[in-house]
């Protein structure tokens, strides 16, 4: 009889609807990548892959089904792929991947870095910058990360109450090394040609100008009256020059041929006849190289700087007595000899080389440099001011304990309720309502693709906590007898809701300052707690009120 009354209630239907929508949102599988099911003995990937690994990105292409892998069966070169959210690089010599895969099913809940592991970094521009420059910085960072295929990398600008701008980068599966070396690095690239000038008696000539050693605390020289050292450049024939070093009676100047702005494109993938990008095994390690394409003006500067260089013969090869020195953010990364045939030529395709003992490190370094050069230098220098890093295993363990803790808490609450009221009729609806509240909050999170992190979990706990309190208030109001007069059931429920709205309002009032000021943890917590309380007031608690009315209704409390 009582159940029939319940079915007519729109509040109950609202709750049921919310639960159904949430279940759909949480359980509807979305495909994201492929799962490796087998790896053959001859596969070039057998050292890097294991059965069960999930791949969702290869060489800048999204992989969503096994068919997407077919085009890579004929691939040779460096395979860059996203394995379980981590970028992996494997050199493939002979074509053929040698693996079998199936479409993966992935959960719909977006888990934050606290739970799946990763790195979160807060960067501060060293000087105040405008919004445009901020946008530019973000765009450059985004380009840098593109080659890395880390889908889970999020860039955000964060503003605190003093109006200061920060950039927050969250990388699932990344490490601080990637952030320091790749993203926080400004990436100022310089390619300079060394020009040796011999001095006699402390004086010499360079390009029709007089040059002599100066008298400074650090090394400096004076060219036609202008002093230069190793930091401040001067213009000679429209080319920037700085002083490199003074050795015995030879002054070495550096003329700037290429800078970051001159790089037009970077060769990422070797293409026969078009551009070179290679990894070569040497006796003591691995050498990598790749071509970059530079602007015509910079190529002309190169021509002018090498035009009058002397030739040196070394075994069978002829080189110039001028070297191409490459700098990244002021640090020398390479010293390249220049073949004599290039003297006075507008050289538009310099090759960047590097060397590492370990193959994996060589591949990683090559990719890092390609990425920095391709994206260009950041418009402003960034300083790392906050780092959070969590290893994936810690995160997984956390999910397990969180579920365990949640169930344990639900059980504890049910036991207390049962002890107090001694009726399953009361304890069970409370338990079910609280569980449905958690379900609906998670469903809402899945629909709006909100990231569930620690703050969100704490927020859910907070919301459900106030939920249980509200239910207890409703129960007691219904059961209460007041002296001689008894209020009608309706009046009692009304008063119960007055109290509940009151407490919900104060809870939300406490959360609002957190949302405004909010940094990280606090803001996410406040948002989820507020959403939870709102879901409670509008969906779960009214429904519970009706359920309680019908089930407990006119039952008198046992003293």
């Amino acid at each position, binding site marked *: 009889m009582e159940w029939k009354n319940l079915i007519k209630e729109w509040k109950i239907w609202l709750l049921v609807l919310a639960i159904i929508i949430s279940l759909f949102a949480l359980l509807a599988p979305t495909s994201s990548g492929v799962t490796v099911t087998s790896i053959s003995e001859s596969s070039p990937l057998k050292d890097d892959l294991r059965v069960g690994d999930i791949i969702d990105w290869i060489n800048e292409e999204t992989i969503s089904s096994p068919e997407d892998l077919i085009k890579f069966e004929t691939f040779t070169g460096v395979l860059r792929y996203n394995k379980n959210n981590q970028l992996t690089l494997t050199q493939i010599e002979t074509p053929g991947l040698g693996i079998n895969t199936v479409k993966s099913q992935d959960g719909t809940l977006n888990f934050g870095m606290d739970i799946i592991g990763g790195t979160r970094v807060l960067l501060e521009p060293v000087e105040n910058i405008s919004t445009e420059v901020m946008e530019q910085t973000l765009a450059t960072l985004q380009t840098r990360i593109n080659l890395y295929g880390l889908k889970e990398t999020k860039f955000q600008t964060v503003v605190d109450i003093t109006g200061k701008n920060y950039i927050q980068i969250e990388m699932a599966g990344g490490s601080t090394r990637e952030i320091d070396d790749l993203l926080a690095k400004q990436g100022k690239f310089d390619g300079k040609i060394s020009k040796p000038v011999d001095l006699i008696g402390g004086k010499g000539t360079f390009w029709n100008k007089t040059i002599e050693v100066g008298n400074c605390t650090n090394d400096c020289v004076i060219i036609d009256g202008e002093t230069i050292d190793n930091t401040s450049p001067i213009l000679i024939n429209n080319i920037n020059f700085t002083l490199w070093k003074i050795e015995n009676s030879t002054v070495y100047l550096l003329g700037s041929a290429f800078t970051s702005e001159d790089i037009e494109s970077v060769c990422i993938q070797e293409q026969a006849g078009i551009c070179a990008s290679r990894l070569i095994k040497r006796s003591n390690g691995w050498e990598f190289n790749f071509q970059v394409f530079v602007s015509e003006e910079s190529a002309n500067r190169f021509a002018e700087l090498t035009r009058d260089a002397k030739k040196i013969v070394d075994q069978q090869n002829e080189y110039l007595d001028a070297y191409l020195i490459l700098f990244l953010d002021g640090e020398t990364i390479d010293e390249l000899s220049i073949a004599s045939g290039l003297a006075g030529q507008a050289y538009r395709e310099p090759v960047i080389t590097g060397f590492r003992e370990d193959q994996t490190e060589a591949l990683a370094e090559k990719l890092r440099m390609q990425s920095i050069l391709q994206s260009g230098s950041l418009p402003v220098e960034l300083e790392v001011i906050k780092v*959070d890093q969590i290893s994936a295993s810690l995160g997984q363990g956390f999910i397990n304990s969180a579920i365990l803790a949640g169930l344990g808490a639900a059980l*504890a609450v049910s036991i207390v309720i049962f002890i107090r009221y001694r009726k399953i009729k009361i304890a069970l609806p409370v338990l079910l309502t609280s569980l449905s509240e958690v379900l609906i909050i998670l469903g809402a999170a899945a629909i709006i693709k909100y990231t569930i992190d620690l703050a969100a979990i704490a927020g859910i*706990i907070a919301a459900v906590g106030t939920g249980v309190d509200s239910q207890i208030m409703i129960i007691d109001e219904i059961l209460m007898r007041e002296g001689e007069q008894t209020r009608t059931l309706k009046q009692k429920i009304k*008063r119960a809701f007055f109290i509940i709205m009151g*407490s919900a309002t104060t809870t939300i009032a406490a*959360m609002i300052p957190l949302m405004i000021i909010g940094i990280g943890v606090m803001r996410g917590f406040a948002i989820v707690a507020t959403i939870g309380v709102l879901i409670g007031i509008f969906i779960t608690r009214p429904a519970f009120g009706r359920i309680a009315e019908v089930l407990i209704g006119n039952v008198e409390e046992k003293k």
Partner: protein
Amino acid sequence: MNLPVPDNYKKYMIIPIIILVLSLLFLGYKLGTTGLDLSIDLRGGTEISIELTSAIPVSQIQSELSQYNLNIRSIESFTGQTIILEMENSDQVEDIINTVEQTHTIKGWSQQTVGPALGESFFAQSQIALLLAFVAMAIAVFIIFRIFMPSIYVVFAGFADIVETLALSQLLGIELSLATFAALLLLLGYSVDTDVLLTTRILKSRGDLKDKIQKSMKTGLTMTVTTLAALTVLYFVAGNQIITQIASILIIGLLFDAINTWIMNINLLRMYVEKHPEKVR
């Protein structure tokens, strides 16, 4: 089950007042000398948490890592042992992890680094957040009840809860962090729940005063006990430092709230009702 509602209630109010005074004195002393114990997210620095599969005595870790200038703490939990290392310089993190990995199995680790200027900024912002929340809540309470004195009692009880929880947590060595700030705010919300319940029942329902008090206490204490039960489970099972911190602050807070609501606030209301019986609807 009848809860005690004594007639000579006024003398019991000494207890919550003494607790409040002691807490204020302790906090005053702390602020005047060393300042509050802050976690690194509010003062800057680097902290690594390493979860080990088996329990190792802290002294052993200390000697293994003696070359780095570290502050080492250890937390035993359901799932194993977590050692927490604090240092000034974040460059050594990888070296330290490698050193530990050589002799022990690591289940996982996490790092948190905060620049000191940022930490200070967070601390300042948290204080403002707490203040704003307090004010917002006080306003909300006044709007709900529209009566002056009882609203003051509610706000006062909330203030006492926060001060006493802060004092005891500092005494127990729980560092103040962004998470504990969030917990304090949550505590404010919960504390007001019980006070709003109490005040509504007393002022807006009919019946014998003692009876009303008796029933509100039953409801209120049920609410508090269920929350405490859930928090205790969370504290022991959750296995994550942030959740444990939030749980311990809330547990301490709710216990103080029980005293402040059911010994202090309730008796202030009793005095008020006895003086102004017409205010009860």
